[in-house]
């Protein structure tokens, strides 16, 4: 069955078209990713689907209910963990979860028990009695997500669940998302990070300026980019010219700019081309100290789809007046992370 179905969904703020005709069809029981840079319309999409915003035109059905006409029915079935703190900082973790459990209709004793269970499951038992304002970023994110799970939602919306988190906290959130999905909840998450979408989401939509510019599995998307990035360092920077000549001779080898004279980043069609190039370098006596092959980043996907880099698009949507949490990465992260892993292997 279809969990979410939108047709020509439009949301305008003044003259800004935050959503400019979005068509999505999301299967029940899956993890679906919406990928895009800042200001692409990801948050607006989530806010429309969770009834916080009314669509300007078009239609959005959530579990068969029209978000504009039956918002109460939608709210009964979904949970939202927004991009910003969605629990009360002046309350303890336990009190926050009791509060939400009570609001979701659990009796007092059940609510207390449920709060304790969730704190255990999210590794927050030690901080149960502490005010949320004293929590670290990763703990905040976990309590935010826990607050959405006091009762089981049919669809869980997560708006940039890992933005600004350190790698360890990010892994914890990924693990939680997988478990939530395994428990049968449909998860719709937004992210700026291709690796995150790749690891978690069965399918994803890339959005830009309020439009879906690509939709499919992450394999499809990467294939559409049609290239990987090979990084390597020369032992002797003096050999740069010699290496450059070999790269030019490589089919489809596009040299990317680098500031370090010993460093190279090259677009290659596939791993085979990379292996051949490295072989050629070795035969020519050009020694490399290390190399890695990275999969395409959001930047690459964007560039391939739009012909321009994924800069933070126009301001004017995605909650313009609220400060973004730090660490908003556009694309760079995944390439480097993959690169590190592959060079280690």
């Amino acid at each position, binding site marked *: 069955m279809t969990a979410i179905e939108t047709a020509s969904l439009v949301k305008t703020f003044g003259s800004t078209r935050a959503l400019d005709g979005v068509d999505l069809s999301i299967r029940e029981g899956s993890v679906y990713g919406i990928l895009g840079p800042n200001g692409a319309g990801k948050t607006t999409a989530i806010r429309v689907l969770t009834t916080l915003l009314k669509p300007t035109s078009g239609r959005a059905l959530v579990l068969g209910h029209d978000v504009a006409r039956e918002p109460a029915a939608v709210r009964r079935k979904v949970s939202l963990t927004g991009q910003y703190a969605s629990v009360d900082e002046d309350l303890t973790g336990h009190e926050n979860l009791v509060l939400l459990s009570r*609001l979701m209709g659990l009796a007092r004793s059940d609510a207390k028990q449920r709060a304790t269970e969730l704190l255990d499951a999210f590794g927050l038992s030690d901080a149960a009695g502490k005010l949320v304002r004293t929590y670290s970023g990763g703990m905040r994110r976990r309590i935010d997500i826990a607050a959405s799970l006091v009762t089981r939602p049919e669809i869980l919306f997560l708006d940039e669940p890992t933005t600004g988190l350190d790698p360890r906290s990010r892994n914890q959130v990924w693990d939680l998302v997988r478990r939530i999905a395994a*428990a049968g909840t449909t998860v719709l998450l937004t992210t700026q990070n291709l690796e995150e979408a790749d690891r978690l989401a069965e399918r994803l939509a890339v959005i830009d300026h309020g439009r879906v510019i690509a939709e499919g599995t992450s394999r499809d998307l990467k294939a559409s980019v049609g290239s990987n990035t090979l990084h390597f360092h020369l032992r002797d920077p003096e050999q740069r010219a010699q290496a450059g000549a070999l790269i030019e001779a490589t089919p489809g080898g596009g040299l990317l700019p680098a500031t370090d004279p010993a460093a190279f980043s090259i677009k290659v069609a596939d791993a085979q081309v990379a292996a051949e190039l490295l072989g050629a370098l070795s035969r020519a006596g050009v020694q490399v100290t290390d190399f890695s092959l990275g999969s395409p980043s959001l930047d690459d996907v964007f560039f391939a789809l739009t012909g321009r880099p994924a800069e933070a698009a126009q301001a004017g949507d995605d909650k313009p007046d609220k400060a973004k949490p730090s660490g908003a990465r556009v694309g760079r992260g995944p390439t480097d992370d993959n690169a590190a892993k592959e060079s280690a292997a």
Partner: protein
Amino acid sequence: MSADLIPGGRDALVLRERAQPISGWAATATLAWRAMLKIKHVPFQLFDVTITPIMFTLLFTYMFGGALAGSPKVYIQFLLPGILVQTILFITVYTGVGLNTDIQKGLFDRFRSLPIWQPAPILGALAGDVFRYSVASTLIVVLGSILGFRPAGGIVGVLLAFGLVLIFAFAVSWIWIIFGMKVKTPESVMTTSFLFLMPLTFASNIFVGLETMPAWLQTVVRHNPVTHLTNATRGLMHGVPVGGEVLWVLSAAAVIVLVASPIALRLYHQER
């Protein structure tokens, strides 16, 4: 994470199916409980708003009391009901400030996405505020009696006065709720509302009687709602009949609520 499973081997993430939605009253009561917890954890909220009136009471009673009324003891009988009015009106601003903070932090998005009666978060916060007004009122009257305040209307008069001030404060809170939803930061809620409150409380008969002012100012002050509230509060506390003023204040409160609350609720539903 190691503690994946709870005893019994079930994953805590799947344990609870959705329960029945709760009633509007239950949701409001639960959110009022939240407001109480906040007072418990951040008692400074209360401290902050009671320090000013304590200072005002002490300062005016002892510094100006002799000059204004012959002696501090005589003056405090006149001043204290007015200080109560001023303090509570100032505290009402925190309703708007708290609401704005919740909106800016994203907490209201969560509340608005819950299957609960939509006005509950606002009414719950208001209930907490009314509790806060009561605590502050009690503090002021206790301090006053230590300094020699002796209300002729007795405890009944004082309680009636409390009731009246709370009703008016509840009404005024709705105005700050509108502010709280319209402006960008909690600080600007504070600044804007004090812009209104300062002249309203000072151009009134809280500190000095109407008859001491020039005629043109008397006209202004006489029409100030704060003057009506102060007259009524003073009268109730000292057992002087002020039925007309009480009626005026109650009608004004009713008008404010009737006009401001629908606007506030509409703004709440409006998207941000």
